[in-house]
């Protein structure tokens, strides 16, 4: 069970959260203008990196807010979490041992 730093509530147990897939996928403003390939990618194509992953979580059983996180999928350590609408922080390399403080 991970510890996840909710940007609103601070570090909380994973049980309170729900993973919501890749972050920063904006719904097209005009879906009808999307080609079949573009729409197919929006619906289904997701990053699956072995390494740093920008993903969404929701503090489902806490404050209820969606937020984003950078997590290293090779260690499951988070680097940071940030609110929706904020840009992906520039982070390179891997998550530090022991995880987010």
């Amino acid at each position, binding site marked *: *069970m*991970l510890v996840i730093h909710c940007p609103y509530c601070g570090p909380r147990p994973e049980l309170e959260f729900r993973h919501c897939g890749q972050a920063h996928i904006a719904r097209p403003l005009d*879906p009808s203008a999307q080609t079949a390939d573009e729409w197919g990618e929006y*619906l289904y194509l997701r990053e699956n990196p072995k390494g740093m992953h920008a993903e969404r979580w929701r503090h489902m059983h806490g404050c209820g807010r969606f937020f984003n996180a950078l997590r290293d999928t090779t*260690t499951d350590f988070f680097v940071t979490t940030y609110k929706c609408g904020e840009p992906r922080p520039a982070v390179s390399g891997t998550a530090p*041992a*022991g*995880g987010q403080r």
Partner: protein
Amino acid sequence: MSQNTCRTAAGGRIDRSRLVNFTFDGKAFTGHVGDTLASALLANGVHLVGRSFKYHRPRGLLAAGVEEPNALVAVVRDTARRTPNLRATQVELYEGLVAESQNRWPSLQFDVGAVNDLLSPLFPAGFYYKTFMWPRKAWHQVFEPVVREAAGLGKPPTEPDPDTYAQRFAHCDVLVVGAGPAGIAAALAASAKGASVLLCDEQPEFGGSLLDEPNAQVNDHPAAEWLKASLATLRGRANVTLLSRTTCFGYFAHNMLSLNERLTEHQATPMTGVPRERLWQVRAKEVVLATGAIERPLVFPGNDRPGVMLASAARTFLNRYGVKVGSRVVLVAGCDAAYLAAFELRAAGVKIERIADIRPAPGEAVHAAALSAGIAVSTGVTVLGTFGWLRVTGITLAHLADDGSVQDRETLDCDAVLMSGGYTPTVHLFSQSRGKLRFDEAQQVFVPGNSVERERSAGACCGTDGLRATLEEGSQAGTSAAEAAGKAGSAEGYHVQLLEGSMVGTPGVLPQPGNIPPSKAFVDFQNDVTSKDLALAMREGFESVEHIKRYTTNGMATDQGKTSNMNSLGFVSAEKGVALPKAGLTTFRMPYTPITFGIFAGYDRGDLFDPVRPTPTHAWAVANGAVFEDVGLWKRSRYFPRAGENMHAAVDRECLAVRNSVGLFDASTLGKIEVVGPDAATFLNRLYVNNFNTLAEGKCRYGILTREDGFVYDDGVIARLAEDRFHVTTTTGGAPRVLHMMEDYLQTEWPDLQVWLTSTTEQWSVIAVQGPKAREVIAPLVNGLDVSNAALPHMSMVRGMLGDIPMLLMRVSFTGELGYEINVPAGHGQRAWEMVWAAGLAYGMTPYGTETMHVLRAEKGYVIVGQETDGTVTPDDAGLGWAVAKSKPDFVGKRSLARPALVAKGRKQLVGLLTAEPKTVLEEGAQIAAVPEQPVPMKLIGHVTSSYHSAVLGRSIALALVADGRALMGQTVYIPMPGGAIAAQVVAPVFYDTEGAKLHV
């Protein structure tokens, strides 16, 4: 009753004043309070405790602790409380304990399975992959049952376990695993300045290896006194939690560690109400691993005979339990630490026949001590074999020349052989934490390398030798852990007086004449894996240690290789001629020791397995004989049978009551979401396929929700309470996921919208009054509110009072009849229900359940999401295309509805089916074909989604999804069943009141 013939006169930590009676294989014995089953058996001179897995060789105790591979027993409290595969070394003795040996027939002394020992050449590693293949079915029918019967160890429990199990979450600044000298020193240092510390140890008594050190002095006091004082200090600190009989068995991400506390297993009569065991899930800011080290056996022919055991085990049995493991002992030493066993046994009056050191040059201190004690020491020897069957009677030692020839062969009589190949640090938890192990060349063992989690190791588990170093390392680790957790620590220095020997040895197999791997030189005792098996696996091309492990099963027994993995690695590296770390290392997996399933289940059993959610009228339904159905977590009334009625009779009656008069239904489980804000209509418009801008205040609309993929996700009636306020209903099961989906779009896609969501599912109790008499029933209850068709037409709503209860009254129908759904605050739900019920009695009002609700709506062709739809159905497929506001530029799912496959011909469409034979009720889920009596595989065109007997129509009806179904109206299709195909006509999916007139009365 037998005597404790092998007990010392004094000493040990047992309570000699208290006798304990127990039985082993039906034979009565006595031991003392403080004994383990193993120590008590040894005290009675019993070495033979088990039979091996494959060859059924007689086996005795190898170890005194958690690593014991041989002495697996079943402990039986009663018929339901049978626990197989327990290590006798970990079973605390209690009055009346009943233990049985395993894997033998007819008895432990005479086991016919031992014929396998003679036939062992036929059963090399992996033999089963090479045979039992002909004839083809013989494996499953003939050979496999035999193999299975032979495999397995103990007999499993067969009755429901009556015991209970507990769970607990905990947090601490510092978790210290292991209460040996390093762990206690760590806990003392970490807790001195206020950090919260949790210290756990798998043993009943704290102290670890100190309990086996009668001669040590710590800070000028006997170790036992230092231990006692230290524990008293810890107990006196409010910030310290001590957990004995508690195994830390798992190290999970982000410093969560799992502990297994055993609460009653050691009690003769377990305390009532106390759980048998408890699972702790501990989140520690910092961790100190002080898990010690485990001695390695030596691998030589006959190293498995009863009476051959680890030197450390002999020390533990002597020092902790006052038991002498033999009277004439040979010690085969691969490290200096082993010598202490000989010294202490000799001091207890045991004759040491020889110390046979496999090294040419033992450590000077222990060597000198042995000589001065008058013990004969041979150096540079190897063991050629042992004698004895049910107990070791002798050992053959020799020197090997460089060419592999035998010199100085000699055979010594003895009744116990002690062995030590050095110690292996217990790095299981460190490895589970994903820390990388480092191979220490000097010590020939793996030790913790860089940490990944916030932990540090101290003491023997990181290869530290010597009590003083161990104590000081523990103290430092405790201090650094407290500081890392943001608190202060207090490191101490220690001084120690003790004759010690190094724990460093060399893993592998003792050399044999001609360098041929001997048979019956066991590496993995429990799985009967010999060095010869390892050699065979390598000959067959299995080079990776993981392959060798899997092919030979080395290290896969219930001890998970605690005594075998390093020797296997030593052998493999020697055979391959590579350095040991190059041979690789198998993975350490959770759990450290076997852990009872029950603690993982914890309180999740029976009615508490999952929440049982009753509706506000549950008590009324129970009192009125409802049969319930699980829908998600809810208990819903399925039907209300009267005396003598089965479900069909009850449902027929309930249906007719609604069609002809009036029925009462609890719809409270429907999900409800209040959508409020200036942009509420805009929001719903973007989400739902329908148009909500045009919905007037006080009106209701049936809404359909698709996901972005265009498939139906949920549906429900949406009422506009005010310009900026909607009451959205969802399916019962869909409520949480619809709210989640709404929040997702609102928070992440459209944060600019001024609209907010609140779940009101449980705020409202929903009482559906349905049937032609519905208005007459409720009219007298609503304080003069005009509920006429003109004032409150179908799909409208109004606020009012039901008696003295505020209500939201919705004119909606899921039955096709005149209908109202009375929403009242849930706390008034049962009272409101009873009010309506009393008013309805005059009209023969009938309560009905979900089954009748299903029939009634099917007669009208109303779909149920999850039954007519299955996640692959579009609104148009389900006959709901009319609801889709095609003029809207966008809504969630709109773009996908234009995808090729979603507009292609041949999509399954909702239709009605009427069987040619009106009494025949199709089976839900039955498949549909255009052509009867086809060969397999048949061409199928759809399936039956709902099917019932309709009482009002006097015949069966069905809904179905059929490819291009709407083009097949009037045609006959076939439902292939085992007894032959059933013919049915495709019709429109509305069977009753097709014009909908009854809705508008």
